[in-house]
């Protein structure tokens, strides 16, 4: 005589709609591809997608915002936000370029690993400071990382003497433009980090605690999760991802620039949100963020491809962000996952 504690089966009522709501970002990506493909064929008589150059360009367009978006996904799932990633990326790019500029005449082969190490270490610092401010000193993430946005920006420009820092190093050039199995090295780097972050988020305790923290902070605390340490690590990881993005930037352009990541901050947050993460925390996936970054890249590259004024990119990406948030709102209703009571 087990009592049946059945909840109202809201989710079972519209299974097809619920599926659409969760799979919409995949669907949207496909629709975009079909749209540009059709346009390209009708207007120019060429293929958009079956052209390897276009595919590679889209992947390269997506790589940098995606690298920033990987760490951002963790932070947003945990209920935070990291506004500093763009300028942390720039700072890392400048530091890497500076270190390599000095070392290249002496030891060109050694300059690359030294530059990578320097960029990585420099990127962790703002992350540790962000994490400490937010976890120990209870600064709201929006404010703490906005402060770091300014600090990293200023330090980046100071380190670069206000200009770009060029590097002439064959190893760096190879890292930025070389290919392996026909695929550019920056895409391999991004892919590797995507796989690692996906595993950590979906399979490990660390990932689980990230979701728990965004779902119910008090539950996480009462479960004995070290919430302060976890928060510190989240912002450090986010900054570390920005550091990797900075390295890739410096390699691709053989130069470091403090403003390298400036336009990428919003793209990275947009990728996470379009990928299905809620800005209130508790949901999101790495796969979603990858799709989100690809959607943005397809829009940006596709609009250039069909000769639309480049400024329409901003409009299009902005509309997609708003639509994806609207879909997120309705999804909670369709799948019965609304916070009722």
């Amino acid at each position, binding site marked *: 005589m087990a009592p049946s*504690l059945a*909840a109202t089966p809201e989710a079972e009522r519209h299974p097809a709609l619920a599926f659409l709501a969760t799979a919409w970002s995949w669907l949207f990506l496909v629709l975009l591809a079909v749209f540009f493909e059709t346009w390209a064929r009708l207007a120019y008589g060429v293929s958009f997608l079956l052209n390897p150059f276009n595919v590679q360009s889209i992947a390269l367009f997506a790589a940098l915002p995606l690298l920033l978006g990987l760490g951002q996904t963790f932070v947003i799932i945990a209920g935070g936000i990291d506004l500093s990633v763009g300028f942390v990326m720039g700072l890392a790019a400048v530091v890497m370029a500076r270190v390599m500029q000095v070392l290249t005449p002496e030891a060109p082969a050694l300059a690359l690993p030294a530059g990578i190490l320097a960029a990585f270490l420099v990127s962790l610092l703002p992350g540790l400071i962000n994490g400490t401010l937010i976890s120990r000193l209870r600064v709201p993430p929006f404010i703490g990382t906005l402060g770091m946005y300014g600090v990293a920006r200023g330090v980046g420009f100071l380190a670069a003497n206000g200009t770009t820092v060029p590097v002439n190093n064959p190893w760096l050039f190879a890292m930025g433009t070389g290919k392996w199995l026909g695929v550019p090295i920056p895409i391999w780097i991004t892919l590797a980090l995507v796989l690692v972050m996906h595993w950590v988020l979906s399979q*490990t305790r660390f990932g*689980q605690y990230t*979701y728990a923290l965004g779902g119910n902070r008090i*539950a*996480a605390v009462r479960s004995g999760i070290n919430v302060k340490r976890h928060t510190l690590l989240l912002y450090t990881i986010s900054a570390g991802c920005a550091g990797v993005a900075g390295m890739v930037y410096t390699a691709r352009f053989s130069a470091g620039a403090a403003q390298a990541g400036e336009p990428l901050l919003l793209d990275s947050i947009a990728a996470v949100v379009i990928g299905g993460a809620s800005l209130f925390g508790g*949901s999101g996936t790495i796969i979603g963020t990858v799709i989100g970054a690809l959607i943005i890249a397809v829009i940006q590259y596709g609009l250039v491809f069909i000769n639309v004024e480049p400024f329409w990119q901003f409009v299009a990406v902005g509309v997609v962000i708003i639509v994806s948030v609207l879909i997120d709102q309705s999804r909670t209703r369709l799948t019965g*996952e*609304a916070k009722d009571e």
Partner: protein
Amino acid sequence: MSEAGATAPILACRGLTKRFGGVTALENVSFDLHRGEVLALAGDNGAGKSTLIKAISGVHHPDEGEILFKGERLTLANPRHAREVGIETIYQDLALADNLDVGANVFLGREPVVRALGLLPRIDRRAMRMAAAGVLETLEIDIAPKKLGLPVRSLSGGQRQAVAIGRAIYWKAELLIMDEPTAALGVPEQRKVVELIHRLKRQNVAIIFISHNLIDIFAVADRILVLRRGQKAGERRPAETSHDEIVKLMVGG
């Protein structure tokens, strides 16, 4: 009740006193609790119910008096310490991560980890789900198998309550403190939680049950401890008292 009375109590509080500045929130409160027994804590707002359970669950440190748990004197450092010795508190807000499934909530903070390919650490979600299903089954809680994989926010209030209780039982809670477990529920679900408490009792769990609802109290309690202004106003067996008497003890006079 009578058979429980023959053995040593699992919990014995002796002269517990807690002061906050000049205010005495709890004054010289003593009681016993046996395995398989439900003690209801009744009292008006500010009577000291919360202070009492917080002292037993390691949140507050009593200024005077002692807590004996399984015959040994217990000085609790913090709530985690209480949980480690087998005292679990289920708060009104349940402390569930709404975005995670039942298994993940039962194991939150204590997930079993296996190594994929002998190398990569991976949470064993299948083991978590099966263990969660197992504990819910022993508690005779019926949650559809496919619901076990959904975020717990898709469960009803009573089911969520059951998940919180299941978590405590899975981790071998011997004393369960339940703070207003029926307050946020509709009437049918209240009844199910009351049934669940009866079942826990039969599984020899000792329960302290806080409620404002005299009907629930009379439905589940073996004894009722009434607090008034931090002091023990009385202790009654439901069979030997009435709602009126309990209310009188609560408000005085």
